């Protein structure tokens, strides 16, 4: 087992955001984290990234507790991309990648930046300020930053939110291709069910801070007697039962 989440809870004041969740991530698998808005996905990701202190429970990476280990030792194995988190707008794409490459201690940084910018087709706007780019271009740059350190664990929060279908498809295709060539475990939070079906080996469904079901897409669709993942999501999100 690569990452194990054990009885993880988070209480903000008296509000229970995450309620004793348990799950594990196998090495080199992609797991979808689904659930309606406010179900605790972002808090769970925040705890995995060390941005939020859990109220109780443990996050174990190869049996080592995330919160007792050296912050930078763990974080250099992680990376994260989200359209809701931006890179400094007034810096050029090249400058941003250079800075994050240095922060992650990348050796032969020029070569790595070159590689990743060719793969993600961001070379054409390399010298433009990040704030001047379109949403699609920004998402590609953000993805480039999240892959700069060749992370072992990649957390993606709605990586294709608000993108046109063409760019969205490009990003999904790239993540698939990257995964096939590199050893990386991905946790993907998304509201796009076709994206989840395409990218994820299995999914975890959350509601009101709890995990209400988990399994492969096909298993869950069958189990709940629905035609596709979207219908399954709606059933699970609206139901008051636990499964």
């Amino acid at each position, binding site marked *: 087992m690569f990452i194990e989440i054990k009885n993880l809870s*988070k209480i*903000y004041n008296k509000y229970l*955001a995450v309620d004793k969740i348990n799950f594990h991530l196998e090495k080199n698998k992609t797991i979808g984290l689904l659930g309606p808005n406010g179900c605790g996905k*972002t*808090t769970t990701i*925040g705890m995995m*990234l*060390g*941005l*939020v*202190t859990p109220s109780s429970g443990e996050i174990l990476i190869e049996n080592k507790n995330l919160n007792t280990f050296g*912050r*930078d*030792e*763990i*974080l*250099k194995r*992680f*990376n*994260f991309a*989200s359209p*809701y*988190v*931006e*890179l*400094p*707008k*007034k*810096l*050029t794409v090249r*400058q941003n990648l*250079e*800075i*994050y490459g*240095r*922060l*992650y*201690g990348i050796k032969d940084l020029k070569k790595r930046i070159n590689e990743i910018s060719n793969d993600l087709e961001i070379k054409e706007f390399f010298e433009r*300020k990040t*704030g001047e780019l379109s949403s699609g271009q920004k998402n590609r740059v953000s993805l480039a*930053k999240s892959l700069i350190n060749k992370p072992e664990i990649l957390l993606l929060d709605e990586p294709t939110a608000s993108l046109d279908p063409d760019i969205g498809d490009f990003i999904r295709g790239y993540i698939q291709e990257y995964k096939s060539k590199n050893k990386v475990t991905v946790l993907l939070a998304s509201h796009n069910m076709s994206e989840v079906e395409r990218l994820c080996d299995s999914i975890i469904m959350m509601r009101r801070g709890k995990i209400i079901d988990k399994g492969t897409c096909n298993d869950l669709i069958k189990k709940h007697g629905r035609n596709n993942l979207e219908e399954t999501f709606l059933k699970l999100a609206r139901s008051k039962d636990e499964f």
Partner: protein
Amino acid sequence: MNFNKIYALGLRHLYLVMNSFPRVLDLIYWPTVQIFLWGFISKFFTLNSEYYNNTVGVILTAAILYDFLFRASISFNMMFLEEIWSRNFTNLFIAPIKIREIIAALTLTAIIRTLIGLVPAVIIAIPLFGVSVLNLGLPLIFLLIGLYLFGITLGLLVTSGLLRYGPSFENIAWASLFFLAPLGCIYYPIDILPTSLQIVARGLPLVHIFEEMRNILINNSVNYLNIFKSISISVVYFIFGVIVFYFSYFGAKKRGTLINMGE
């Protein structure tokens, strides 16, 4: 401490300045205006008041040193605010960089920003008003160290407030130095203050720094004990600032505010 990471974070802020001519102009503009304003005011006092006779250098030097403190503190705050404004906060705090490396990077970069603004103003003061801070001699270095440490401490306390209360604390960032200025005895001796406030003022390094500056310029003598006192008090405040910053950081992690920090 990893100096490559400190350099990387410093570079992020230097790129920001280098990419924008208006930013460079903004850094230079305010100190220059200050020098002009206080230069003319002190020239007027010198010509029209017996008390201020031959003290044009004292007031203007005080203005330059106070501006150094002000710029150091504001530079520290500004760099932290830039991360919030650009919604880069999460990316920064999930990077494998230690909190002490972030503090070191902001502290070291603040001096560059401060000097970019202040050096041209200091140079202008020499031919225009015949005043040079270099007249303070070797003690100038120690006075600047004390001021810089205290400026960074104020920056640390304000950024701790930003971590605790979010961007709404921004206004305090601008007001913080003005709040302390009356107690700092920058332009007047400490005897002017009421006795009760004198006790409070002596707890600040500013009083000792500016009293010593006046002592050097007016009496042509150096009291190193006063300088040592000012640096020691600054170091104590700096350690306090670092502790408060760490508390705010761990508090923000507990409250989950690091995820959503933005405009």
